[in-house]
């Protein structure tokens, strides 16, 4: 693929990261003392109970929410605004209904006024990658939920991002579609090598896709444990049946269950 040599992902570094929301009803501490290094090209999942602050962490990395305390850098630059070479995917696909699939994918380039004659070809290549080549000229309402989310992923990838942020991107999909898209995502990552920060509720999904799984506590989010996943880079649906996979899943589950019973106990980082 004729891409610029930006095969290096971005390195994200969080040190004693904190976030407190001030609102009329009071203050909410959403993130407390999170320190995490995400090396370039890594796939890191954030796993934790609902409302614990996962989206908040992601939004801070995205430059959408200011940091309250600690430091947050991308490639050693403090985050003050969204990174130019960043793609983001939310739980809802957020496609623009009045634009065709192709125009939705090209949107980030149009906004940055960076559309070139090459862009169209790149968009079509991306569609090919997620098996939607025939739908370039359809409108979003003509697609299923899973297909729409794939378009949203293409939209995030069109700028060849060095950092891909995904906030429960597959949460609204059925289990089979979800697994298929996860595997698609891994394939995409081996193509482009972006750093991926991936928020999910699903232990299975986190383990299947990630190099590292970070387990967070209930609000305020603190890191309970970090797991390096020893499954190698080549993974697919069959990986779920391997013993290593099952081992890691049960370890992660154990940490979450232990925490659920004694929330005040914060076990130290367990690294494989």
């Amino acid at each position, binding site marked *: 693929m004729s891409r610029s040599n930006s095969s290096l992902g971005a390195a994200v570094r969080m040190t004693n990261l904190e976030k407190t929301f001030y609102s009329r009803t009071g203050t909410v501490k959403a993130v407390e003392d999170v320190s995490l290094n995400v090396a370039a090209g890594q796939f890191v999942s954030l796993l934790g109970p609902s409302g614990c602050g996962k989206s908040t962490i992601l939004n801070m990395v995205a430059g959408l929410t200011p940091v309250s305390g600690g430091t947050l850098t991308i490639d050693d630059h403090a985050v003050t605004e969204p990174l130019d070479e960043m793609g983001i995917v939310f739980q809802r696909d957020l496609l623009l209904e009045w634009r065709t699939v192709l125009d939705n994918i090209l949107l980030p380039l149009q906004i940055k006024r960076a559309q070139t004659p090459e862009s169209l070809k790149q968009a079509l290549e991306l569609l090919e990658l997620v098996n939607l080549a025939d739908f370039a000229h359809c409108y979003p*309402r003509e697609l299923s939920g899973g297909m729409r989310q794939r378009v949203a992923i293409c939209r995030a990838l069109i700028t060849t991002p060095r950092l891909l942020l995904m906030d429960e991107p597959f949460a609204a999909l059925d289990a089979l579609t979800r697994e298929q898209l996860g595997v698609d995502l891994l394939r995409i990552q081996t193509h482009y090598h972006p750093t991926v920060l991936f928020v999910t509720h699903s232990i299975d999904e986190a383990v299947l896709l990630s190099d590292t799984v970070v387990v967070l506590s209930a609000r305020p989010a603190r890191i309970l444990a970090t797991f390096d996943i020893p499954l190698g880079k080549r993974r697919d649906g069959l990986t779920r049946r391997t013993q290593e996979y099952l081992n890691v899943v049960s370890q992660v589950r154990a940490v979450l269950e232990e925490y659920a019973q004694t929330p005040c106990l914060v076990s130290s980082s367990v690294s494989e």
Partner: protein
Amino acid sequence: MKQLVRRLSTTLLVTITIIAVLVLWEVLVRLLDIPMYLVPPPSAVFKETLRLGPELLRHTWVTFYEIVIGFLISVVLGVPIGILIVYSPWLEQVSYVLLVISQAVPKVALAPLFLVWLGFGMQTIVLLTFLISFFPIVVNTVVGMRSIAPEMLLLAKAMKATQLQTFAIFRLPVALPSIFGGLKVASTLAVVGAIVAEFVGSQEGLGYLILSANANFQTPLAFAAIAILSLMGLAIFYFIAFLENRVVFWQRSNELEPEAWQRASVGVDL
């Protein structure tokens, strides 16, 4: 194809119903021997329409003109004001309250005052038409502009869209369905506004015609004017609905066409 058949059969059904009502009306009026000045039979109304054709046409044009001008002014002012209200916290607090208060004043009650201030004539009628149709346009624009999902705005921010881009690419299209809803409501109100204004102070137009026909016991003429007025209201409404279908094509009320479904389900590889 199937859709065309369905639409045609709906039209047919409506036509038949209207004809049936007219026939029933004609028969009842004749059977019960109701005097012409109370309820004229449709045939008499029709005859009167033909007899006074050019005269009716002139009054129709006057009223149509007033409605369209008043309505257009409220669109041209209402939509931008609605947008400004969403963008400016100051305007939001001040003008929204002002608008709601002004809405509490029945504008029809102001008609005699306007007459004193602006004098007899079209300007007074256009002003009242504008005032009545203005509010729903502003409110629907505000509601539409606010209906954007917060995540959508985050997405725009993540793409580093400028304020102008965020407005033109995200917010305005999202608001369009609601704006068109406002336009449809406003268009029917504009008709009411023009007629009431004509009642109060005009020497021409369908509203004037209805009043004067009533005064002279020319009930068939009054009925003819009312019928024309209803048709005009319908025509304006459907014209806007037609525009809506064109502009807000992604929200067309009818379901997906079957072909699109087939296209969409092929190639979903699981």
